[in-house]
């Protein structure tokens, strides 16, 4: 697809189109990457320590591995037609739990509004997520319809958050920065502050 440019009203200059964050690689670009991969492989064979008679007599194509390049589709699963529709999403925080249920405060991610309290079944949690169940744990709950190969079905998912944020070094550094900033605040004597007694 050719890039387009847009005239700005203020300066009269053409602004450059954003490069590449909006489209995935075109089929041509994918093919170029694969040609380069194959080319690199052929170069390796040519510069390898194979005896010359082997290089000359052997057809290089026969040395190439049987390799089926994957087709990098530019689309979602269009042929299989997999997509979700009419989905309601919540973000929840666990407030308490027992052996069979857990209570959570839910924030509606689809429509906004006030938070809600819900009691959900422990059995609705995937086995590998159960180890993440604790008070304060964050999870995402979605409910809606899903299209899969022409069949519509209802689906409800609970998935606990797996988020890597600060490591211990960064956390300590952040705490140190707080201490440094706090030290800049001088204690104020409200009883003897003349400016307050005017």
């Amino acid at each position: 697809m050719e890039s387009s440019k847009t005239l700005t009203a203020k300066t009269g200059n053409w602004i450059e189109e954003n490069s590449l964050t909006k489209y995935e690689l075109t089929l041509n670009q994918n093919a170029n990457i694969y040609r380069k991969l194959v080319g690199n492989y052929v170069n390796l064979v040519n510069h390898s320590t194979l005896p010359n008679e082997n290089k000359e007599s052997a057809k290089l194509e026969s040395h190439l591995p049987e390799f089926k390049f994957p087709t990098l589709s530019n689309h979602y699963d269009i042929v299989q037609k997999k997509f979700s529709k009419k989905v309601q999403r919540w973000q929840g925080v666990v407030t308490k739990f027992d052996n069979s249920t857990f209570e959570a405060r839910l924030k509606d991610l689809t429509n906004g509004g006030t938070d809600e309290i819900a009691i959900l079944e422990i059995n609705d949690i995937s086995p590998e997520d159960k180890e993440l169940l604790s008070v304060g744990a964050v999870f995402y709950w979605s409910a809606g319809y899903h299209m899969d190969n022409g069949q519509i079905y209802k689906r409800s998912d609970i998935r606990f958050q797996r988020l890597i944020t600060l490591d211990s070094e960064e956390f300590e550094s952040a705490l140190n920065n707080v201490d440094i900033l706090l030290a800049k605040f001088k204690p104020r004597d409200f009883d003897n502050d003349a400016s307050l007694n005017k």
Partner: protein
Amino acid sequence: MVLERESYNLGIVLLGSFNPVIITPQWLFNKKIIRETESETAKIELIHPEITRFDLEWVSVQITTDRVEFRSKRESDIETLRDLVVSIFNVLKETPIDAFGINHNCHFSLRSTTEYINFGYWLSPVRQFDTVMQDPRLLKVEYVENIQNDNSKGMFRLTITPSDLILDHKSVVFSFNHHFQNTDKQTSSFINTLISNWSESITKVNSICESIWNQAKL
């Protein structure tokens, strides 16, 4: 008239300098970013220093040396996708990132083919070509924001085309690219910008869709 969205999915694209062989399903599990079964059942198409591509059940990942793309397969997993990207680049915190985009795809179905055609006529004065083209129709229209100085909120580009997901000849897809330049190329800046603009990006997409359907003459 505001049409109900038929399908919505989201992708995140990053531009920078990457090593494709690092981010693999096994690596993601080792870092506790995904479940073990997800790493075991991942569909790996290729892992190579030039390009890596694999699918988990809920996300497609494609990495080249200068571009990374994560694409959710379901609307229910868009927050998980964000967490995945944040976690990866909190681990790979030395990765230089030049720019990134949040890409939203919203698919709508109109009620009839007539409305679908009229929507095209409303978007663009196609009928003025009636005398020189045979029954001209609109195939694609693209709008871009003109924000030059303030990059903190990013810049939207909207493309409207026939839907490639709902093939009933009366559906359209609004493809939004919310683009950000990462001027200092720091991973931490990218993460902060992504997190702070995430909700607003989704809200703005919804607002634009609602505005279009409220104004469209079908």
